[in-house]
């Protein structure tokens, strides 16, 4: 098999006549067919692909990093490890200031079931346990670890598990011990998802390799470079959940990853790899379940209620890699990309590395306007680049200061064009919700118009020609409703 056939065509690469013609034609095509336009249908009917209704097609720019192998990043002088870098209760420190720790050593323990421990990402000494900036805003407690730069940085905490002889309970405990959380961005403790509610039976494990966020390619690289660990992780999860099958869903802009996985699939196990349409937000678990199985997670329910458990490929690759070795999660793959990055790429980053260190490593253009942790659609813009990379950070996107910037564009009244209704993946009426938000009818938004189903994917605000900050309105409305309830 020649490599060329399985690779994505490089988009927008200059030099030959084809991109030139394509660019010329792009000017003539309707807005709906252009990248960044909203696909309204007609032409897409002829290409039957697994997908969900609605959604958007932002310009992805994944070609900047898709072919760049994961490179190891040097250790920053000081790593900052927030105790609350996962959902649930913050971890409790096990170390004291001045204590020397070895790479891989547990430095904080889980505080309850919905919580995970933390491990030292490097050999060094605990410098402080103090407040540290976070992307969310308020400072939280964190362990500052000064790295011994001269140390060989061997992981010396290999307890080693024979995972085949472990009981399910032991595996779940081991997943928690490893400090594993959802690496797709949610940072929800993985072992909790392995214990589905009593009223649900898991028959299908869905492995989420969509990576629908523009710019990000870390999951793509994980699928290409850590295929064996990924499959090991899938087999383990299938055993624990009792699932009869596993489906790896990958957007069709990463067909080389599908080929790679298919070539390595064990013949005796019901694991398949399926290409789904490249469309945002394909990687949202509700959307991927709809695309692959045609099922909808009932309102207020969990994927488990339709017999499904969804895991991100990065998480499963880490499970497959760490569990047999008995190690903890101390590093993760991060894509650093965006128009303001000089040398974008995919990096294996020790947890706790300050974003500043990472950005200095890749080089930042003077046009830098905004730094986003996570993806450009759902990620969080940071006020300080001294925040650290935590377990849930899949990418760092640096955008340029742009004259044609959304925030500088005028906001018009809603003209009821209906684009947001056509974009909303869960079929809300963002136009109406936006008007209600302006009228401060937050209660009616939730009771009459399903506000609580919104997962803030940002599709409505992305397409809105009036530039109304719909997603932000909905966030505000939800938080006010939460406050009123309490």
């Amino acid at each position, binding site marked *: 098999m020649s490599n060329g056939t399985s690779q994505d065509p490089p988009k927008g690469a200059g030099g030959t006549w084809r991109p030139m013609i394509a660019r010329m034609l792009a000017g003539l095509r309707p807005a709906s067919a252009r990248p960044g336009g909203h696909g309204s249908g007609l032409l897409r009917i002829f290409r039957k692909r697994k997908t969900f209704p609605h959604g958007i097609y932002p310009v992805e720019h994944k070609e900047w990093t898709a072919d760049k192998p994961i490179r190891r990043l040097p250790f920053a002088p000081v790593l900052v490890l927030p105790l609350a870098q996962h959902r649930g209760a913050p971890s409790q420190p096990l170390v004291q200031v001045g204590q020397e720790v070895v790479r891989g050593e547990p430095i904080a323990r889980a505080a309850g079931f919905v919580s995970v421990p933390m491990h030292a990402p490097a050999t060094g000494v605990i410098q402080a346990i103090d407040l540290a900036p976070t992307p969310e805003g308020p400072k939280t407690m964190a362990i500052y670890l000064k790295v011994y730069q001269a140390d060989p940085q061997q992981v010396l905490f290999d307890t080693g598990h024979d995972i085949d002889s472990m009981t399910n309970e032991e595996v779940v405990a081991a997943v928690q011990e490893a400090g594993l959380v959802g690496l797709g961005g949610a940072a929800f403790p993985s072992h909790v998802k392995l214990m589905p509610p009593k009223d649900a039976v898991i028959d299908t494990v869905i492995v989420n390799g969509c990576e629908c966020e523009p710019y990000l390619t870390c999951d793509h690289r994980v699928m290409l470079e850590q295929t064996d660990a990924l499959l090991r992780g899938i087999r383990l999860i299938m055993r624990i959940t009792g699932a009869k099958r596993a489906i790896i869903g990958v957007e069709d802009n990463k067909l080389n990853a599908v080929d790679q996985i298919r070539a390595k699939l064990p013949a005796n196990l019901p694991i398949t790899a399926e290409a789904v349409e490249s469309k945002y937000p394909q990687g949202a678990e509700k959307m991927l379940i709809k695309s692959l199985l045609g099922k909808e997670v009932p309102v207020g329910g969990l994927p488990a209620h339709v017999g499904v458990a969804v895991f991100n490929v990065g998480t499963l690759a880490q499970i497959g890699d760490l569990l047999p070795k008995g190690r903890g999660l101390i590093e993760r793959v991060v894509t650093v990309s965006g128009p303001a990055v000089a040398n974008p790429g995919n990096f294996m980053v020790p947890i706790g590395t300050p974003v500043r260190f990472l950005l200095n490593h890749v080089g930042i253009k003077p046009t830098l306007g905004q730094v986003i942790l996570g993806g*450009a*659609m759902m990620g969080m813009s940071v006020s300080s*680049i001294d925040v650290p990379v935590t377990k849930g950070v899949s990418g760092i996107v640096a955008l340029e200061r742009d004259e044609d910037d959304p925030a500088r564009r005028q906001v018009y009244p809603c003209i009821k064009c209906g684009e947001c209704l056509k974009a909303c993946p869960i079929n809300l*009426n963002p136009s109406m919700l936006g008007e209600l938000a302006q009228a401060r009818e937050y209660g009616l938004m939730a009771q009459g118009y399903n506000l609580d189903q919104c997962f803030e994917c940002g599709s409505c605000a992305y397409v809105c020609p009036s530039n109304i900050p719909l997603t932000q309105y909905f966030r505000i409305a939800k938080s006010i409703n939460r406050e009123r309830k309490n």
Partner: protein
Amino acid sequence: MVKGIEIRTSPHLKRALNVQQIMRSVVYAMLPICAFAIWQFGLSAALLLATTTGAAVATEAWFSRLRGAGNTVADWSAVITGILLGLTLPPGFPLWMAAVAAFVGIGLGKALFGGLGYNVMNPALIGRAFVQAAFPVAITTWTPAFAPSRFVELIPTTLTAPFMRPESVTDWIAGLGVDSWTGATPLAMQKFQHIETPAWDTFAGLVSGSAGETSALLILVCGLWLAWRGCLDWRIPASVLAGAALTALPFWLVDPGLYPSPWFVLCSGGLMLAAWFMASDMVASPVTPWGAIIYGVFIGALTVIIRLFGGLVEGVMYAILLGNAAGPLISAWTQPRVYGAVKKARAKS
């Protein structure tokens, strides 16, 4: 280098298409129709379009000044209203009345509701409805298409002095030497004399009528382009036309001598222009996909019912205004079904 980074809320990306571009696209789509109107009716049509557009823009500018919230002319929506209004008026319509129509349309139909995005009904049609009630004779005074002298002289009624009754055009038309001029549009001839104008003439626009409504073909092409650009919900024109044709069909099957064929219904009068450019007005039409279809069929059916059984020759204007009025209700009835809804979750009012 990192000093000036900004914090914003997600999403951090934004599609390029904005309100101004949508409105400008609509203006571009109407330009060929304007050109055809001028070619067909000459200088009078050109002056009429210039007057309605100018008056609409001036009214918008005045009201936005009164409001003190920045100039809203730049969003191009007033230009659309002005051009549309001009296209729906008879080519020889007195200019001062056209200016009144534009003022009423923008002022009463839009600015008083709160400007762009808040109007309940199509402003151009509000303006036209006002002058239809105020000047019933002038708005049904038709002049022949392709008059030989159309580029050298104005239709006599065009320059009527303000607050004066327009003079009669009968003598002027007699002097033009146009053959077979009956003084009626194809719609009126069908309604009162049961003579159906040949299909090709109405489709191509070789007939008399309001300035911009004659060529169904041209309007269709321009409207399709707009839908292809993504600046128009194709469901609305499609369902207006389907609703009109399906309502006309049974009557025509019963008595083809008395009732018009569905094809004639689609190509005659202002239906085509209204379906593509007026019913589809985003602000005044339902926002939900099914709502758009119900709204379109309602307008199409109502148009045919007014045409066949009402006192008026053309009913599309009132059909759309009624459709606009019903729009919010239709929207409320057709809220989309949310992902994962177990039972039908509806707004409890």
